[in-house]
């Protein structure tokens, strides 16, 4: 190695490391990452106590990684490199042609059985009919799309176990969605069902409730966004798939009351603000909240949904029929579901959750209280 060449290599190495450091320092800090849908770590403050207990250095590491230049771009580079090596799984998401499907891992700590037991206890505790509507995720409904031999926990067997619960009436989303597996019932870049999928879910739920669903033709399908890049887009680092389009079928004006912080506020079936953000699915009912009530004076009957986010795109369909649809989220609403249902004169309680949520939720103990 000649002296000149050694100097060149030395300079190359130092410029690569030092250049990124300078870039990092000059780049203004971002408040949040839209791709990751979270607030990013800010420059930590140096205090003696933080230094002594090690929390300062950890905060520096978080800050440095979160504010790294071209953060999203690097993730894409990794995904492409992995694809080249023959990988089909990217941070727990399978790439299946033009579709991303999240793998479902086996439940921890027996949460699957525990949450079924909580549901059964709810049915014991109240005279109001209790329905269990477990929604299979794309990994089950679209199992044939997964790479051959790729693992995903058996949701169908679990749903079938749910049907055997005493005192609980089943809602068969498994068959309803399975029969329509050839259609676009889930987003390609997000883990939720599409409005079409939610429509099939609504039809199955109405059938279980003993009521007649409206046929598809009665709804006017409109595109709300064609730029939807969902959670799986972020999680996988696969950024080159075409975005999803998001539809709205129900256009009626209902009274929507939203309890986000303990006080009721007027809201709508849809929150247009979210269409301009990354988290477009929260357009439906404005996303996660402890409690939300949709009123339709022409409807009959009152229904309580123990919700997760899948329920948000299904609820507008139900509102066409029911006088009141209540959506309660036990991750944020810390009270007894049975007591609430009795106080508000509900005619039915539906535990309406996707299987991946149901088997990881640690708050469903509130169901039995």
């Amino acid at each position, binding site marked *: 190695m000649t002296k000149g060449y050694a100097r060149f290599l*030395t300079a190359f*190495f130092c410029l690569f490391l030092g250049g990124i450091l300078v870039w990092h320092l000059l780049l203004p800090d971002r408040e949040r990452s839209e791709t990751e849908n979270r607030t990013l770590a800010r420059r930590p403050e140096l205090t003696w106590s933080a230094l002594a207990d090690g929390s300062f*250095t950890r905060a*520096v590491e978080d800050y440095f990684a979160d504010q*790294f230049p071209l953060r999203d771009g690097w993730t894409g580079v990794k995904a492409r490199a992995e694809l080249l090596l023959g*990988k089909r799984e990217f941070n727990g998401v399978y790439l299946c042609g033009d579709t991303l499907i999240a793998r479902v891992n086996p439940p921890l700590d027996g949460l699957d059985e525990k949450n079924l037991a909580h549901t059964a206890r709810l049915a014991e505790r109240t005279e109001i009919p209790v329905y269990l509507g477990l929604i299979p995720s794309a990994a089950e409904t679209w199992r044939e799309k997964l790479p051959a*031999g790729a693992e995903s926990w058996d949701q169908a067997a679990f749903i079938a176990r749910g049907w055997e619960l005493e005192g609980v009436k089943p809602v068969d989303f498994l068959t309803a969605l399975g029969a329509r597996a050839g259609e676009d019932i889930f987003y390609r870049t997000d883990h939720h069902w599409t409005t079409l999928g939610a429509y099939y879910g609504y039809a199955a739920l109405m059938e279980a409730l003993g009521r007649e669903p409206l046929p598809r033709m009665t709804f006017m399908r409109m595109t709300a966004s064609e730029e939807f890049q969902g959670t799986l887009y972020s999680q996988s680092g696969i950024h080159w798939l075409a975005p999803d389009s998001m539809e709205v079928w129900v256009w009626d004006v209902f009274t929507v009351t939203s309890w986000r912080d303990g006080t009721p506020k007027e809201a709508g079936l849809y929150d247009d603000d979210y269409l301009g953000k990354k988290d477009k699915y929260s357009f439906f009912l404005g996303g996660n909240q402890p409690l939300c009530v949709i009123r339709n004076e022409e409807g009959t009957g009152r229904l309580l949904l123990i919700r997760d986010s899948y329920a948000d795109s299904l609820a507008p369909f139900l509102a066409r029929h029911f006088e009141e649809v209540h959506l309660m989220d036990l991750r944020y609403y810390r009270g007894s579901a049975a007591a609430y249902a009795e106080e508000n004169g509900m005619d039915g309680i539906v535990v309406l959750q996707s299987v991946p949520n149901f088997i990881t939720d640690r708050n469903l103990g509130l169901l039995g209280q």
Partner: protein
Amino acid sequence: MIFSSLTFLFAYLPLTLAVYFLMPLRARNAVLLAVSLIFYGWGEPVYISIMVLSTLIDYTHGMLVERFRCRDKLARWFVGQSVAFNLLLLGFFKYWDFLAASLSALPEVNLPRLGAPLPIGISFFTFQTMSYTIDVYRRDAPVQRSLISFGAYVTMFPQLIAGPIVQYKTVAAELAGRVNTAEDFAPGARRFTLGLAKKVLLANSIGALWDAQLAARAAGTLSAAGGWLGILAFGFQIYFDFSGYSDMAIGLGRIFGFRFNENFDHPYLSASVTEFWRRWHMSLTGWFREYLYIPLGGSHCGTAKTLRNILVVWLCTGLWHGASWNFLLWGLYFAAWLALEKFVLRQALKKTPGWVKRLYTLAVVFTGWGIFAMEDLAVCGGYFFICFGGGQLWSAADGYTLRSYGLTFLILILASTALGQSLWRKLPERAEQILTPALMGLGLALCTAYLVDGSYNPFLYFRF
């Protein structure tokens, strides 16, 4: 701090290099000491005190041994004190909880556990400072009179947390006076990048497969083929993780003007278990040979004593890797194979074709990794039961695993051989000059991408 982190690569390292090279030569040991203490204290700031205490005690003992050299008994006493101190330090932090838990299994015994995190690198720096005092006594190394230079040696961040175990005598001259040139920096930077790529791109990737197979065992879906794929994955993970770390250490050392000894020499090409241990983690096996095996009499005092010595050294080697029964078992396992090769298989191996010997060695070593990797002996037993046909032999998931990791395995196998090195040497100089920066740039960029994605970056060697 660990080398394969964004903070190290793009903040700590460039800043350290800038400060180090801007300072005059005589101040560089002091700079090295200061930045190394920051490096060490990054994860657990309170443990800097252990590092400082250990440095002070060993420095003093080196001086005392030198001072009382003419009174041999006293000098020996100080060597003994230093060894005892280091072993107590190691024993307290690394082995107390294991010992207490094991003894508490007896009736009427209930010892308190410490539950404190292990000070990083403690297994490495206690061994280094122990050998320093011994070497001073044996006149194998000169005494270090400058506390700053000695501190710089003990805390030197390139080798601090994952070796190689650098004996004082190998760097004594460079500590006293070294020149820093681009001709050292450039190959050092190249070696560092190679190590980083081995760790981040190869070891971490294949490590994900091992974790997946462990999870499959827990879920009851593991097959025999999947079990062996998992063990292969772990064997490659630990090799590329550890040797990658050694490459980074050796490269960084060279950047700062030090020549550390090599630590790995293509161990998976070995034609016997004995040879494997001459090519794997050479600084550790070398240390045990020099300061334990040979002082015990080595293999020159008859069969019974040789057997005893092998057993002692390998139980210690096993325990050095971790405070748990599986590591003892792992040490015992290798003691048995080494004794077998020494006394029984030697003649037979001579007549065996090379490729059979290599396969035999790989089979022994990788099975050993299975024992090494699973601390819970019940889990380990269950895993091997499946591997040896106690369940299904093949599952659909294995096909998926092979499609997902086939190319990675191919790269790992080729990277374990000397093929790359010999091809590289055959390159015309011009091609090498173009390829070196191109590959370094690609390697650094890919590592950055993987680290930013960063969901999977556990570090295997914090335990040691």
